[in-house]
């Protein structure tokens, strides 16, 4: 039975292919965005985990040291005196090769076998005689091995010499072999001697990889006991996890945005299914007269939606895979900029991601079809459902729907209040808010259009009046269209306000922070020791501050330790949010530190707290003398004065300097002088504070490009929704429109009426979007960003954002209304009147 019915419907759909197209777009785009984001996230994560897995090999633990790494004598002692096997020394760093950043893994091939296999398992093809490779690897400075894929990408063949830029210095390298290891993309394996020489890390190791027996509890304790106090033994899996976790907030936010696209898509599905039910109200009436039950009609509509949802979801998944590949580059870029190096070349198509997409698509299709299915089931036999009946029913439902909306909004507020620091709860609240407001919109629109109709009538005559009052009359269609557009526009407002506020705060912060006139540093490295003194002595330089960015690592993950060699001038560069009275006197002399605001938020510390840090002489306590503002993404930073650092750590390196110029000195002249000093020693990044500020903001903007993409997609879905709603309205009211034409309305007037109607729909959506968007912005700034990153951002809502987004809503609506207007204007009144 159902099969026959569906077949009857199939014939109908075949005659109305664009309806299918609409479901396809609604479900398809929503699913595509979900799948794309999920795939991009999962691929980036998977690539990271795979590369970590490859790098970690069989190591269960890793010995890490302080900012200066580990004394290589520790490793030798463990091997020779303690007789410990299954340990391998590693010197790591990054180099640039032909503009590509490669991770350098400096190893001792003799120690590799029990830890990693890929480093010494070379391809036979393209690799010279094995024993020569072995001898070259050990004895030839710069001898390197690459994954075959990376070598191909760099256009390198075995035997080729090439240049690497390590810590600003050009070094010679030669490719002696390739391996075919998974997860070894953009990884340059060299002998530990080469790595030490390239990075100027003679005598030091980055870490020691350790394989401890899994079943022996005492092994770890015994091993740890053999380590000096400035090193610590960490679980390899834990280190990978804590690195991966750094990007969790970022990825959660992306997923939330993809859900928004589906949410908007839901409205579209509702529109489309309602539309198709309406179109067939005659057919359904006949079926009912023939004895088809309500339940069967209900099931048919749902089954049809499910079928279409499934097909559309499948198409969406395919599109999502395509989109995911494009999105991946953006995601990987953001992760590389801020979290960790990840090389992803291909989307890893995970079954789970695809299944999620299909489930979301079918679920959305069913959810969207539910209300129309109830409607259809309510059709009386042979009696074409009068528009008025449907609208009356909608009218009766409105108070219930609105009440539910209000409850949802209240629940969202409550959730924010009670959920503490949970990011997921914050995002849930955002969605509850959107849904809640969405449910309130139809009632508001009904009231508003009823009130506005006379006004429009007075200004624009009967056509304008009709156009506006029709919105209220067709609320079951228009309401949903307005909601879809309002949500999309509100999201635009919310995110724009958030990004603008954020950008403003960052810009102010940068202006304050960049207190020196000229900055000089090395990309991924430290300044050659002689240069620091030479820079200070450069004519025109009045004062110089120094910075070293060191990392401290323990079970909790990595924390940046920013070491400042301050001059009085640089104090203005630190915006203290709270501080002890003696902050500046103590900072230079006592064992005190400042912590960034995100650090304080995340670790729940404040002025007066005492932090325990692992120094060169073991754990030591440091009092927090203040909390400073920071929008750095590695924001969990601790600020320490150079003198305090030097008392506790044996690490004289300076990564960058800030130069304060004498009055009237041209920064460009000083920059030229600095470049001349560094010539031949090191390639430096030297720039004025203005350029750095601009560059930082450019990176900021790049990061949010991905949010732009997602919101454009949501808006596209909303526009299609309006198109669908307008077409549905026309279909339902074809007779009315035909009568209007018959009583003398010209096609042009009819078209104008419809365009005006959609413009008003856009206006309503824009108006509804303003409070919703502002509320979203607040949630994004004070709840989501705070919980995700610990930042506190000053919210600033510019009227131009609100105005432009309202105009944008109107424009989008008018655009979506053009086709329906044309269609209505060109329809033949006689045919339309005969339809019933």
């Amino acid at each position, binding site marked *: 039975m159902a099969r026959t019915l569906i077949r009857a419907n199939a014939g109908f759909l075949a005659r109305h292919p664009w309806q299918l197209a609409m479901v396809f777009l609604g479900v398809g785009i929503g699913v595509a965005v979900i799948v794309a984001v999920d795939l991009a996230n999962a691929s980036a994560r998977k690539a990271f985990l795979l590369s970590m897995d490859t790098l970690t090999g069989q190591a269960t633990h890793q010995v890490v040291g302080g900012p200066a790494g580990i004394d*290589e*004598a520790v490793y*030798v002692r463990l*091997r*020779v*005196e*303690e*007789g410990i*096997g299954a340990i391998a020394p590693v010197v790591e760093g990054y180099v640039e090769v032909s503009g590509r950043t490669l991770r350098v893994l400096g190893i*001792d*091939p*003799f120690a*590799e*076998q029990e830890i990693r296999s890929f480093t*010494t*398992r*070379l*391809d*036979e093809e393209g*690799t010279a*005689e*094995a*024993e*020569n*490779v*072995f*001898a070259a*690897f*050990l*004895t*030839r*400075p710069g001898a390197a091995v690459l994954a075959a894929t990376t070598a191909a990408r760099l256009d390198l063949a075995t035997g080729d010499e090439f240049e690497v830029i390590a810590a600003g210095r050009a070094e010679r390298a030669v490719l002696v072999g390739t391996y075919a290891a998974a997860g070894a993309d953009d990884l340059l394996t060299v*002998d*530990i*001697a*080469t790595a*030490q*020489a390239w990075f*100027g890390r*003679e*005598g030091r190791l980055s870490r020691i990889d350790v394989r401890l027996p899994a079943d022996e509890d005492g092994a770890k304790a015994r091993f740890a006991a053999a380590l000096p106090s400035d090193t610590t033994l960490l679980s390899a899996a834990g280190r990978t996890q804590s690195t991966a976790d750094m990007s969790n907030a970022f990825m959660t936010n992306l997923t939330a945005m993809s859900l928004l696209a589906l949410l908007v898509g839901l409205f579209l599905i509702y529109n489309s299914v309602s539309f198709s039910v309406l179109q067939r109200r005659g057919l359904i009436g006949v079926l009912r007269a023939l004895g088809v039950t309500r339940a069967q009609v209900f099931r048919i509509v749902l089954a049809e939606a499910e079928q279409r949802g499934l097909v559309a979801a499948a198409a969406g998944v395919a599109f999502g895979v395509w989109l995911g590949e494009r999105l991946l580059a953006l995601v990987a870029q953001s992760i590389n900029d801020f979290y960790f190096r990840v090389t992803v070349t291909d989307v890893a198509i995970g079954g789970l991601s695809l299944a999620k997409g299909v489930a979301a698509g079918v679920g959305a299709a069913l959810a969207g079809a539910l209300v129309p299915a109830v409607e259809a089931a309510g059709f009386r036999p042979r009696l074409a459902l009068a528009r008025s009946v449907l609208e009356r029913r909608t009218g009766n439902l409105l108070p219930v729907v609105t009440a539910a909306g209000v409850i949802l909004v209240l629940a969202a507020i409550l959730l924010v209040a009670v959920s503490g620091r949970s990011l997921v709860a914050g995002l849930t609240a955002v969605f509850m808010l959107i849904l809640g407001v969405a449910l309130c919109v139809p009632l508001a629109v009904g009231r508003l259009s009823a009130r506005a109709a006379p006004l429009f009538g007075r200004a624009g005559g009967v056509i304008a009046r009709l156009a506006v009052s029709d919105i209220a009359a067709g609320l079951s269609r228009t309401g949903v269209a307005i909601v879809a557009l309002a949500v999309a526009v509100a999201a635009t407002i919310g995110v724009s306000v958030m990004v603008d506020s954020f950008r403003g705060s960052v810009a102010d912060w940068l202006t304050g922070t960049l207190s020196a006139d000229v900055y000089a540093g090395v990309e991924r490295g430290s300044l050659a020791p002689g240069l620091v003194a030479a820079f200070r002595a450069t004519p025109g330089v009045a004062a110089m501050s120094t910075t070293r960015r060191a990392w401290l690592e323990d079970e909790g993950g990595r924390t940046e330790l920013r070491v400042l060699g301050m001059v009085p001038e640089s104090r203005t560069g630190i915006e203290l949010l709270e501080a002890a009275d003696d902050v500046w006197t103590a900072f230079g002399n006592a064992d005190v530190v400042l912590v960034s605001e995100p650090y304080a938020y995340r670790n729940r510390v404040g002025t007066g707290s005492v932090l325990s840090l692992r120094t060169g002489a073991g754990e030591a306590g440091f009092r927090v003398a203040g909390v400073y503002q920071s929008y750095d993404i590695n924001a969990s930073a601790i600020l320490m004065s150079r003198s305090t650092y030097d008392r506790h750590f044996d690490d004289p390196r300076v990564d960058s300097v800030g130069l304060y110029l004498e009055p009237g000195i041209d920064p460009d002249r000083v920059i030229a002088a600095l470049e001349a000093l560094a010539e031949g020693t090191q390639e430096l990044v030297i720039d004025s504070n203005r350029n750095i500020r601009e560059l930082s903001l450019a990176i900021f903007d790049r990061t949010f490009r991905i949010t732009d993409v997602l919101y454009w997609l949501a808006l596209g879905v909303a526009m299609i929704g309006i198109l669908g709603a307008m077409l549905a309205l026309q279909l339902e009211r074809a007779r009315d429109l035909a009568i209007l034409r018959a009583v003398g309305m010209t096609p042009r007037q009819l078209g104008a009426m419809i365009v005006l109607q959609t413009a008003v729909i856009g206006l309503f959506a824009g108006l509804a979007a303003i409070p919703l968007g502002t509320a979203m912005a607040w949630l994004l700034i004070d709840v989501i960003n705070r919980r995700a990153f610990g930042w506190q951002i000053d919210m600033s809502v510019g009227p131009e954002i609100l105005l432009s987004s309202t105009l944008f809503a109107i424009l989008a609506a008018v655009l979506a209304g053009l086709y329906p207007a044309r269609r209505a204007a060109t329809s033949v009144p006689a045919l339309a009147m005969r339809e019933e």
Partner: protein
Amino acid sequence: MRARLAGLFLAVSAIAVFAEDEPAGARRSELAELLQSDEGAAFARATAAREFVFPHDHGPHPGYRNEWWYFTGNLTDGAGRRFGFELTIFRFALAPDAPASPSAWRTNQVYIAHFAITDADGGRFLAAERFARGAVGLAGAVAEPFRVWVGDWQIAARGAPGSRERWRLSANDEDFAIALDLDALKTPVLNGVDGLSQKSAESGNASYYYSITRWDAAGTITLDGETFAVDGLAWLDREWSSSALGSDQQGWDWFALQLDDGSELMFYQLRRLDGSADPLSAGTWVAPDGRARHLARDEVDIEVTATWTSPAGGTYPAGWTLAVPSLALELAIEPVLADQELFTTVRYWEGAVDATGRQGAAPVGGRGYVELTGYADAVPAGR
């Protein structure tokens, strides 16, 4: 004499550390290339007799391509339980000169060590291998005070220097370990002609080769956590060279026998591909008073009396009669255990043996070590 073995270790270790698994045939061809390469020309070469100076020459000779400290010995515990041991440390130079680098890890010196225990009564043979670069203290050799080590395996002088060498040796793997005090009972003897041991007719294809053929050894052997107090005799072979291989050579059999009349006999027989003995095979007889006598190839007759086939392939000789008519010496030699094959990166047989026979009319017996190479490689390709 074990230049070829050393070369083989180097090449195959390189492959083991640094390449895909390859069939044995491929290894051999690469080996041949390595050992016949012209690079050898830049290394120091053993071209003429030299003066040996001790303890200086116990230390490394890094200008030569390869070198080793080769200890073997037969030990017994208080209950008469019989053990054999081998601890060998090889040094290889990957290039003639040490590369210049700011990093202490950069070196041309590589060390490999083999450690084996024969538990004759337990019927077990255990072996292990270590690799390390000769840098940053991970492995190395020093003449004074004498020490050669790879990780925590080492042979080193103990106490103040005296007229005879007093060393200590220690090594361990997961299930077995050894720690011995060694006291030289004889002074070093120079093998070959004044310590120059010619390997092929070509000049420079020779090694410097000396031995201390009798050491008093006492200490402990640990097997699976059980420690045995042991004592017995040990033998040290020292050799360094930059020799290349003769392409017609298949392997060799090396005998080091400590007889109970206080004399020792060392003899190596180079085997050619056609199965015949190379004329450059040679040996040394050390009298109880420590005087040494060179033995030429034609002074020694060796007959194989038994064979043993390795489960991994290859048939080794497993019993010999060895006769030196000029010394009126006739010995029957038998392994204390058939399977003393090392599955290190190069597969070879090195094991404790018993010798019984007579010198003139007087019965004579003894213990020793035999090394057999080139038999595993003789397995037909495809195995």
